[in-house]
């Protein structure tokens, strides 16, 4: 019998699906997610790139094709540089605090003793509070006249009476960072804890026999062996920090002035303010470009693979 005859005998169906639509082919499995990512991800992104090549006439509200208008405008816009600086400071400081605090707290809570499991569970709670609600919490606690944190600091003599942390250009970013650090340090704690748990026991036993001090063990053994875990944590946290918006928007609305303006919040301000969509899009695109470049370099250097 020929192959064709065999096929004919086997199939009693009226029609046969093209091969790429059968379950053996990856296409039908991958298609739904790809469609979602194309329609709601790629299409708007292409649209944004197109938008960035247009100039919006403020008076007539007409769009005129002008390839480099927004991009050159951005280069000479001091607020963009200010926002970039704020974003970098925000990301850097938050990462540093979260890493150090996260590691310390992970070491502290990583114990088999009774009750520690409960402490660890409690520690994860801040993670799942809506950031906009966290921002509100800290807005209340940092209120200059009746906020519990502000009043505590004033009572300790660290701040002058009636001092508003969020209302002062020099301290506003610190206030916003406080909320950010409080909410996301538990993220680092969790990851560090998982890292600590995955470490092999033998090197530590050997070190103990050799009489190494706790500091030596930590810096010579724990830290180097945790480098991969730390790199993953820094990468994931870093890309989230760089898009900082929620806390800034709620707590200070980028103010006072532009003291806490980040790239995302500046784009948002333009969007809601004078509705210059092309320019807001350009800034948003620059944020995306920076994230992609920096994270690719980071992944190359530290050999992180997600």
């Amino acid at each position, binding site marked *: 019998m020929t192959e064709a005859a065999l096929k004919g005998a086997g199939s009693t169906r009226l029609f046969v699906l093209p091969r790429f639509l059968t*379950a053996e082919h*990856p296409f*039908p*499995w*991958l298609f*739904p*997610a*790809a469609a*979602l*990512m194309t329609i*709601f*991800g790629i299409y*708007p*992104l292409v649209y*944004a790139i197109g*938008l960035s090549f247009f100039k919006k006439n403020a008076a007539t509200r007409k769009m005129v094709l002008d390839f480099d208008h927004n991009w050159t405008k951005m280069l000479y816009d001091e607020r963009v540089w200010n926002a970039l600086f704020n974003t970098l400071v925000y990301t850097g400081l938050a990462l540093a605090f979260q890493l150090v605090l996260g590691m310390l*707290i992970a070491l502290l*809570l990583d114990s088999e003793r009774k*009750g520690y499991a409960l*402490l660890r*569970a409690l520690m*994860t*709670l801040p*993670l*799942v*509070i*809506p*950031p906009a*609600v*966290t921002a509100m*919490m800290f*807005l*209340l606690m940092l209120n200059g*006249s*009746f906020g*519990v944190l502000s*009043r505590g600091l004033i009572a300790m003599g660290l701040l002058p009476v009636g001092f508003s942390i969020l209302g002062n250009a020099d301290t506003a970013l610190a206030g916003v960072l406080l909320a950010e650090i*409080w909410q996301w*340090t*538990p993220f680092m704690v*969790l990851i560090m804890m998982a890292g600590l*748990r995955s470490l092999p026991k033998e090197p530590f036993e050997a070190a*103990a026999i050799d009489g190494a001090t706790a500091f030596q*063990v930590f810096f010579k053994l724990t830290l180097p062996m945790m480098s991969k875990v730390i790199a993953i944590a820094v990468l*994931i946290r870093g890309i989230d920090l*760089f*898009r900082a918006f*929620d806390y800034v*928007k*709620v707590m200070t609305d980028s103010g006072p002035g532009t003291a806490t303006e980040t790239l*995302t919040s500046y784009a948002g301000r333009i*969007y809601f303010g004078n509705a210059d969509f092309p320019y*807001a*899009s350009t800034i*948003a695109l620059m944020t*995306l470009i920076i*994230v*992609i470049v920096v*994270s690719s370099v980071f992944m190359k250097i530290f050999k992180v693979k*997600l």
Partner: protein
Amino acid sequence: MEMSRPLKILRDITAVFVTALFMFPIFWWALTSIKPISAVFDKDRVNFFDFTPTFINYGVTLFGQSRSQIAIDEGLGMGVAGAEAYDSRMSILESIIVSIGATTVTMSVAVFAAYAISRMTFRGRGAYLNWVLGQRFMPPIAILIPLVSIYKVAGMRDTDNLYMGYLGLMMIYALMNLPIAVLLMKSFLDDVPKDVDEAAMIDGATRWQTFCKVVLPMVKGGVAASAVLCFIFSWTEFLLSLFLTTDIRTVPVKIQTFVTSTGNEWGFIAALGTTAIIPSFVFILLVQKHLVRGLTLGSLKE
């Protein structure tokens, strides 16, 4: 390393203290929600427990009591307008609809993609994986601004058509959660040996039957964990909802409307805030075990 007894006790005390420090804002928040207004705005001292608990704030935000009526009943003499503006039941419902919808969409496309990535060898597998991962790296603002225009043209703004508005918000939430869902499901599927599939297929099961009847039941826990995480991320999302919808106000956006030009309604804010936290807390305790894996997109396992 063995620690001496006093050191152990010192560690216990420090551990409890640090945890308590992290719990304080939540405690203070919940406490504020049952404080009468006078206790919140006490400028003379920090008021911890010296007040009569009241549930007015919950009554107004969750049970639709009239703010002005309560003020009159209590003799506070501040029966001002804007009673309905604080009724948040609709917002909670909207948040639930959008979160469940988004989670359903995400999970129903993610499990298939994850299965193919985990089980099949095909050209462009790496590229596909990078595409999904790239989605996670993208700052939402980059697609948000054009998306508003696109939704306007497509009639998907909630001001034009409420149902399309829900759909629009769900789809973008689904997109944002997709990388987590796909990569997490991939990591759970990778834990199931490929021999399982092969055995089933040798026994005559098709790829589809293998997936539905054999593999999927084995990663039920993973599906649940991914879904819960997607729900939490949708529930807490703020930026997208703020930009994309006007009539649909998810809870994080609704709370912001309590910040008024005449002063912040801290009692209501705290009451709704506390309410918004509760579902997250319940869910997080359910997925404790898979939390690290979820937060690191499946690259770290506990």
